[in-house]
């Protein structure tokens, strides 16, 4: 889809703003920029002044994954890898394929994180009696849950993992010692030690794009509208409307991490 949701700022608006205010102030004023660009600045508005006025308005980002829509094309995985320079063998986002057989067995798969697409033709299972056709199946995209009570920040010994005011969990690559404790503490396998930087790494919800008013790369590249990102504290935003009209689930809710990434149509077999 070429039309971005109404609560998401177009790139052009961002470029105009950068031209007006200068890129530098943007980087250091990311907090302001977030707030300012979350709603479309009207033409002629001084974005910087507007941003400063909106500080403290409490923008909170959220992410919804609609598993009923995912077609398992892997576009998000490829886009994420390219956008963030994720090393081979590691994933900031990945797609899982769930296939159910009539006898109750479940097969889960994510070859290369789904980057190269999925098995074709539809998977059949080898049984002593021959091959057996599956009963039902679906895809589940996964990414960092940006938990509210996140265990990764809790365990980081040096304060290299932190949360922004908007609820985004980030890693400070200049202070991270690379101990891997956060990797162990994340219940979802969202983190990895980046062999190129020697530091912990993870999905940032494309923070660097969001501060420029762009959507995360996985959201932009999704052809099925299975990924929705936006400001959950704005009741008019698309994500808020989706959250208001759907029953959503989170992964491993019993661990009490309170994920900000929420799922529509999650099956009990998805762990």
């Amino acid at each position, binding site marked *: *889809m*070429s039309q971005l949701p109404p609560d998401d700022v*177009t*790139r052009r608006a961002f470029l105009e703003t950068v031209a007006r205010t200068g890129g530098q102030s*943007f*980087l*250091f004023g*990311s*907090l302001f*920029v977030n707030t300012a660009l979350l709603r479309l600045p009207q033409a002629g508005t001084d974005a910087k002044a507007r941003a400063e006025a909106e500080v403290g308005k409490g923008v909170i980002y959220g992410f919804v994954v609609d598993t*009923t*829509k*995912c*077609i*398992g*094309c*892997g*576009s998000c995985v*490829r*886009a994420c*890898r*390219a*956008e963030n320079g994720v090393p081979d063998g590691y994933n900031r986002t990945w797609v899982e*394929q*769930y*296939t159910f057989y009539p006898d109750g067995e479940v097969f889960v798969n994510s070859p290369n994180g789904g*980057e190269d*697409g*999925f*098995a*074709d*033709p*539809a*998977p059949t299972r080898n049984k002593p009696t021959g091959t057996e056709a*599956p009963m039902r*199946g*679906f*895809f589940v995209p996964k990414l960092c849950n940006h938990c509210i009570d996140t265990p990764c920040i809790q365990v980081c010994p040096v*304060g290299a993992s*932190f*949360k*922004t*005011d908007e609820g985004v969990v*980030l890693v*400070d*690559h*200049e*202070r991270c010692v690379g101990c891997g404790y956060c990797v162990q503490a994340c219940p979802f396998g969202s983190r990895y030690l980046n062999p190129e930087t020697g530091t912990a790494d993870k999905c*940032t919800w494309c*923070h*660097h*794009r969001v*501060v*420029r008013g*762009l959507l995360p*790369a996985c959201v*932009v*590249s999704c*052809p*099925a509208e299975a990924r929705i990102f936006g400001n959950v504290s704005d009741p008019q935003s698309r994500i808020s409307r989706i959250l208001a009209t759907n029953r959503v689930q989170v992964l491993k809710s019993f661990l009490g991490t309170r994920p900000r990434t929420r799922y529509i149509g999650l099956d009990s077999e998805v762990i």
Partner: protein
Amino acid sequence: MRHAAHFARLVALLVIVVVGFLLVRAKMVPKDFGVKGHFRLSAIADEAAREPRHIGSDACAECHDDIGAAWRAGKHHVPQCENCHGPGLLHTKVVAEDSTRGYPDKILTAFPKAINPGTGIRECRWCHLKTFERPSALKYIVSVQQHVEQHGGTYTSASRCIDCHDPHTAEVKR
């Protein structure tokens, strides 16, 4: 205490170590650490400083206006340019330097995973091939051969989707 000179030295040693540690610490901890929480505040700016590599289809269409217009008007406007072509940032930079070279080799070198479109049916099958787990409401191709033959074509191992379809509009070429 008269006979505790050795402890005095020990304590002095300890004080030197602790004071030394505190001095080094004062120098090593960034000034903006702990301002807004237990982290270095400028780490947010560091993260924000990364340049987005996906420039967006609008940006592509600024130069490739004819294809952009066709893509936007056609029925294949859901996938973005960069879904198949790879991120455009380096391309725009290279072209800005020298418009006669740079695409796609240089991008492929910089982004090994970037796609060189048109090499086959790989990019198309990502979305269009029938996979059991896909939502059933959508229509997919079960087999390329079947699809080609169904529409009166001749299928060979060299057949590619773009032999018949315009990838930007998905229309059948005449």
